[in-house]
């Protein structure tokens, strides 16, 4: 008998029965059809699966779904509100920080967690903040710049 778990994702409640060894990533993708979190490496290095758990960036491929019960989960699908993009999403578009886009949702969520905690990070702090998200396309240059522009718009940021 699979345990019942209540997941709170992007402000919605989902009552699910999940196998005890199901990863949060698989439940998000297969059960909830939230495919913005992606499998990239299965070892906790690439970060394509990053979601926010109680506001903190975590790799959903290294988290049991049953242990995420009762906690606040945010995925990329929940970032824009009322059709209005989050400033990070806008900055990623405008600064050219998106290439193949596979890493982008995880990258943006890590950046959000960083800025929520440290609204005025310097470039090294940004590098550290997104070091759990690998990008093979951009060389991170424009990603770092996009995050800087949002930080600066918030009144901080040391370019």
């Amino acid at each position, binding site marked *: 008998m699979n*345990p019942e778990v209540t997941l709170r994702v992007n402000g919605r409640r989902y009552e699910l029965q999940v*196998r*005890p*060894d199901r*990863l949060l990533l698989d439940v998000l993708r297969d059960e909830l059809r939230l495919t913005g979190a992606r499998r990239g490496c*299965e*070892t*906790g*290095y690439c*970060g394509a699966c*990053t979601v926010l*758990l109680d506001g*903190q*960036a*975590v*790799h959903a*491929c*290294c*988290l*049991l779904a*049953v*242990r995420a019960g009762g906690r606040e989960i945010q995925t990329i699908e929940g970032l824009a509100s009322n059709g209005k993009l989050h400033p990070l999403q806008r900055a990623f578009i405008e600064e050219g920080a998106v290439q193949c886009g596979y890493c982008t949702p995880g990258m943006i969520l*890590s950046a959000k*967690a*960083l800025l929520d905690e440290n609204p005025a990070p310097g470039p090294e702090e940004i*590098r*550290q*903040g997104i*070091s*759990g*998200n690998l990008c093979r396309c951009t060389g991170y240059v424009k990603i770092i710049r996009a995050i800087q522009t949002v930080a600066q718009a918030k009144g901080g940021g040391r370019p």
Partner: protein
Amino acid sequence: MRAVIEYVEPGTVEEAVGFLASHRGAAKVVAGGQSLLVLLRQRLLEPEYLLGLDRIPGMRGIAEGAGGELVIGPLTTHREIAASPLVRKGWALLAEAAEQVGSPPVRNAGTIGGNLGFPMIGADPPVALVALGARISLAGPRGTRTVAVEEFYRGYMESVLEPDEIITQVALPPQPAGTRGTYLKYRLRGIDRALVAVAVTLTPDGRGSCKEIRIGLGGVRPAPVRALQAEAILRRARLTEETISRAAQAAVEEVEPVSDLSGSAEYRKKLVKVFVTRALRQLAAGGSGVGRVHES
């Protein structure tokens, strides 16, 4: 992966070890899951039961004990340790090592208990724990026991933790007044485990010599080790280029690294010498209080 039959969340330590004892080898404790779930996914482990400790009181958190010691619950995350004012105040070396673990998502989910329970070459916290004289409490069906962190490990991916035991706490003694420390980590990428890590705590005697010194080394299998010979050279001695050089050489002779993808045994030995020297030079130069971290 093979199906896990059940996820179990006992309410007490007794229940937990009772379950582990009655499902010999078929149950695995999941702490942060950062290593366990990867091994599960790769089928290197195929437990039938997963045991979560979240419901057991006291398993997560950082507190100061009655004797002034620092007590950390095994489910405490690296992030919590790195950010804790209490840890920063008296055991900053550990906070700085915790800050060097992997990347933010790994630090947000990974725990100190999981890090100890899945001994990986080049893990950060254990090296700092060695220098800080930490002791690990284990509970099992035969009762509880406490081991020094350097005695916790047996070899590659192996510790003294029995399959029916759980880690219940990590305790760090209060550091004597004036103790300074440093944690140096050398790695290939910024997100990798250490090729070599060096943690040193040094208590001056007030007359320019070391009263007490503890040196922990990581990345040198079996990991981590305490560099006892190097410590002996420096204890009651002054930190000079000469003593530092002798101590660094002694440290090299105390390690038996192996060659792996990250670097050869020979290279690791060279790194031990370089980083023990650098750590001691920093402390000789005064350092800046307990646990200044420095990366190569």
